[in-house]
Each structure stands twice: as C-alpha cells, then as structure tokens.
C-alpha cells in the first residue's frame, strides 16, 4: 500500500537561511510524488511534482524537491526562506498508476515557521 511520512511536525528556520521539509514514501511500483502548501483557512496550493526524469524538480515560489530512489525520499527545499513561506506543507503520493485509483494520499503535514 502507498504511504507517505513526514517525520517533522514543525520546522523552524530563520529568514534567509535554507530550508528543508522532509518526506519519505513507500509505494509499489513507480512513485508519483507531489508537494502542496496550505496557508491558514485556505485551500491546498500545488508546488511541484515528480513523475519521471530529472531527480531535481523545480516548482513554484522558488521551491524545489529532490527525488532519491535509494532513500525513498522526496525532500522539499528552498535556498533562502522568506517569512511568507510560513505555512503547512503536505507531501502526497498518487495511489495506483494509470486508469482509476488516482487519488492522493497525504502525509500528516509539516508546519514551517520562518522567523525574521
């Protein structure tokens, strides 16, 4: 069964410092991985996804993620954090592949707090 783990409930970073939000996955077959961000009382905004190809995926707002097959990880990164990046971040894996069963399975979320 597909699953995603986000080992940190909260990550604290100083503005201007690099940030990493961790995600590990467990899938049968090829992984299809996504990152979403949720601001308070808002919907989920798509950041980036890994389907195939280059292990380094670039997304919105300067975020990127590195797919590591041997470590079954898909960590989200940003070289220089902004206070406005403070939000709840969800890693997700696509259930199944092809045809139906395309719903997302989410991790528990990581709250990112960027201090000035």
């Amino acid at each position, binding site marked *: 069964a597909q699953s995603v783990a986000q080992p940190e409930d909260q990550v604290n970073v100083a503005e201007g410092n690099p940030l990493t939000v961790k995600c590990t996955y467990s899938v049968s077959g090829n992984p299809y991985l996504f990152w979403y961000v949720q601001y308070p009382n808002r*919907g*989920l905004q*798509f950041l980036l996804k890994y*389907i195939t190809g280059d292990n380094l995926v670039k997304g919105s707002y300067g975020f990127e993620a590195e797919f590591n097959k041997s470590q079954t990880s898909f960590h989200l990164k940003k070289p220089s954090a902004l206070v406005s990046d403070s939000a709840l971040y969800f890693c997700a894996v696509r259930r199944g592949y*092809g045809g*139906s069963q*395309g*719903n*997302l399975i989410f991790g528990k979320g990581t709250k990112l707090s960027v201090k000035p």
Partner: protein
Amino acid sequence: AAGVIQSPRHLIKEKRETATLKCYPIPRHDTVYWYQQGPGQDPQFLISFYEKMQSDKGSIPDRFSAQQFSDYHSELNMSSLELGDSALYFCASSLGGTGYQETQYFGPGTRLLVL
C-alpha cells in the same frame, strides 16, 4: 487563471440535517475529487468522478453521496449530519481522467460546522 470554485465557503448545520456542497472544476477539467480534512488532520480522499462516472471511492460514509453533472460540476450530498462531520471539505480537479501524471488543483474548501 481560473481556479476551482467551491460553494458555499462556510456552512453551519444542526445534527441530523442535510447539506449540499458544490464544486465547479477548472474549465476543461473532466475529473473531480472530494477530500475531507478534519481539524489538524491531513486530507482524506472521499470519492472521485471522471466524465460524469464515479471512478473511485475512499472513506466516504454511506450517509454521503455525490455526482458529477453534464457541465462537469460536482455536488456532495451529506445527510443525517453528525458532529464528527465538521471539517473542511475540498474539491480538486484535473484534466484527462485519473492518470497518474495529472496534477490535482484544489479549491478553497467548504468549512462545515455541525452543531
């Protein structure tokens, strides 16, 4: 760019009442997903539709039903509401069925409070 529209944004109901949530997908998107996010929880998949047919079913209670209409909008009908149904309900849409490469774009959600 047009986004997913959900209505209403907020809804307050009494126990045992019914509620109907509506979702209007991004234009040309033919697939709709419904998710439920409880307080402090991750979103949980409820049900999905592709080309007006149910394509997959998750942890949706029997008290809930949903459908996708000819214009691709979808409605989630919730009956005999319980206190535990209080949550944020998201709709997401994607293009081209439930293919694994497609990105799901989420609406702002409907916050349901059952008293």
